[in-house]
């Protein structure tokens, strides 16, 4: 019986058969909360997708998901979940062009290194054929080439520090790549695996780079460790970057949660406004014998219906906006806006359902608490006060 009464009163508060003003107020709040939630969801999807995109660049081009540091001394067994194993040599060198110089990380890799997984992360230009020059070729990023003011086919010198002093090694820029993340590109150059050995004569670091299924990184790392290998993961090799990405993600989540809390508080303002405007009706209902708990329930369910509908709508809208993010970002990336140069603008969109759920739950929880708190005022409305409106 009380449920039927509750349903009747809640529907009327929601604007069903209600006045135009009541409908407008509910609609205004519904739209406002939906927009806030959609912005929260969109921002979270954007930040998480971008940081995962950056992590992927570091894992696929920088160090691989896992590194086994026995060099070429041992053969690394393949395991389920391992997608690719490459022997890599690396060192640091100063790279010179007539216009500039830069300290870079030089990676010596085999021809098979740039498989489909890695080429999916970069854009490669039309390079020069290997046999077109007797000089060794290096693969530079477009960012680095811009800094050094060189292009494909231009000469650069690698300054190598050895026991006999510093000596230059002339090379030609064989091709240019672009991973889309200039922070990584600016310091990473590739050359042949054999060239590194010849140039550095054993002072280089040699290790195996493993690409694995992302969800199996930890288990495979443990498996290799158990077998006696010295294994590190990409986040250990790039500790600062991994920590920064993680901290940024958590900080943004924190900000989103704070905004969700503010939004929850705003929702309680809706209940305050409804009660304030309906004082006469509330007094009337209590005069007719309705208990304060029933009246509170009416306003609580009304506001929570608006909240839940807004959250659902906002989440869907946020996801919908995120799903159309890639073409917009590609367009922005193509414009090479300098202020965005240190942001990754091309990445796959991932939906952090856990984070979204967390934000939504915080918003719901804060709304429930603040609305309940705000509805204490219902008890202060005396039945007699309806006669004051005569």
């Amino acid at each position, binding site marked *: *019986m009380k449920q*039927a*009464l509750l349903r*009747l*009163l809640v529907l*009327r508060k929601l604007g069903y*058969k*209600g*006045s135009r003003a*009541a409908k407008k107020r509910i609609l205004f709040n519904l739209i406002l909360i939906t927009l806030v939630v959609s912005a929260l969801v969109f921002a979270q999807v954007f930040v998480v997708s971008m940081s995962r995109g950056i992590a992927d660049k570091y894992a696929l081009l920088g160090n691989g998901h896992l590194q086994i540091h026995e060099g070429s001394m041992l053969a690394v067994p393949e395991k389920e979940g391992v997608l690719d194993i490459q022997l890599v040599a690396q060192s640091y060198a100063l790279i010179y062009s007539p216009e500039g110089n830069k300290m870079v990380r030089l990676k010596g890799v085999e021809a098979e290194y740039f498989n489909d997984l890695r080429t999916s992360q970069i854009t490669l230009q039309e390079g020069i054929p290997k046999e077109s020059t007797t000089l060794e070729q290096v693969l530079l990023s477009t960012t680095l080439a811009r800094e050094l003011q060189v292009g494909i086919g231009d000469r650069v010198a690698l300054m190598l520090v050895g026991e006999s002093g510093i000596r230059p090694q002339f090379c030609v820029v064989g091709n240019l790549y672009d991973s889309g993340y200039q922070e990584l590109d600016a310091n990473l150059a590739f050359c042949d695996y054999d060239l590194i050995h010849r140039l550095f004569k054993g002072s280089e670091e040699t290790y195996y780079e493993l690409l694995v299924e992302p969800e199996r990184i930890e288990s495979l790392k443990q498996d290799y460790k158990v077998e006696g290998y010295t294994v590190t993961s990409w986040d250990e090799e790039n500790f600062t970057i991994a920590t920064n990405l993680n901290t940024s993600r958590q900080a943004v989540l924190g900000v989103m949660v704070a905004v969700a809390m503010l939004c929850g508080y705003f929702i309680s303002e809706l209940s305050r406004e409804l009660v304030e405007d309906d004082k*006469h*009706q509330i007094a*009337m*209902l*209590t*005069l*007719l*014998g*309705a*208990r*304060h708990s*029933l009246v509170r329930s009416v306003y609580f369910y009304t506001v929570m219906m608006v909240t839940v509908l807004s959250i659902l709508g906002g989440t869907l809208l946020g996801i919908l906006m995120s799903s159309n993010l890639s073409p917009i970002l590609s367009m922005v990336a193509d414009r090479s806006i300098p202020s965005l140069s240190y942001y990754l603008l091309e990445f796959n969109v991932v939906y952090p359902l856990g984070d979204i759920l967390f934000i939504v739950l915080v918003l719901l929880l804060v709304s429930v608490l603040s609305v309940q708190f705000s509805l204490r005022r219902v008890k202060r409305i*005396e*039945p*007699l006060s*309806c*006669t004051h*409106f*005569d």
Partner: protein
Amino acid sequence: MMKSTEVLTLEQVSKSFPATLRGGEPIQILEGVTLSLNRSTSIAITGRSGSGKSTLLQVSAGLLSADSGSIRFEGKEIPKLDDEHLSRLRSRSMGFIFQSSLLLDDFTALENVQISAMIAGFSEKEASRKALEMLELVGMQDRLSHTSDQLSGGERQRVAIARALVNEPSLIFADEPTGSLDERNAALVEDLLFSLVAEREVALMLITHNLPFAKRCNTVYQLHNRIVEVRS
């Protein structure tokens, strides 16, 4: 089971209000008021404006607390009832009619009466049936789906009477129910109120300064100088 005949009893009831917000001597409104009201009887309280007639009604209905004295409604001490019991009593045993009809704005005439029955615990269907029946009795069957702002003053007051009677209460508290109506409508509402009260064996406490209206009650009290006395 037969319902007890005694509906309302006031014994030595006093009520005062603080003089100003800053305190000072309280203003005494009622002093040692004693009266009783049985089922199927009606009393009218008359007096000058500001004499405390409405306060007496509000204290009797538990809408205001008394400073001292005893107020029993169907044998229950009203000041001792908690919110739940007082709400139940208001919904099932009391009916209210005020000068202004005080209908719920966004609701139709039918819904206004139906909600009162639903608050009293009737199912939606039963409440609707009872509301329809009551609105037919007050001649409002053609205005069921009209909202408050689509009804005239007299029509709103007839809906208020239907709402006050829908739960078959023991007592109707009516505070100047015809005060804002023209002569024709006032006479219509008066007739309706007395015929329904008599037909349904309900007690009536009527507050009015309209003497001919008051004289239709079984007993007429005069509130003068804080004291209630039977008007001769």
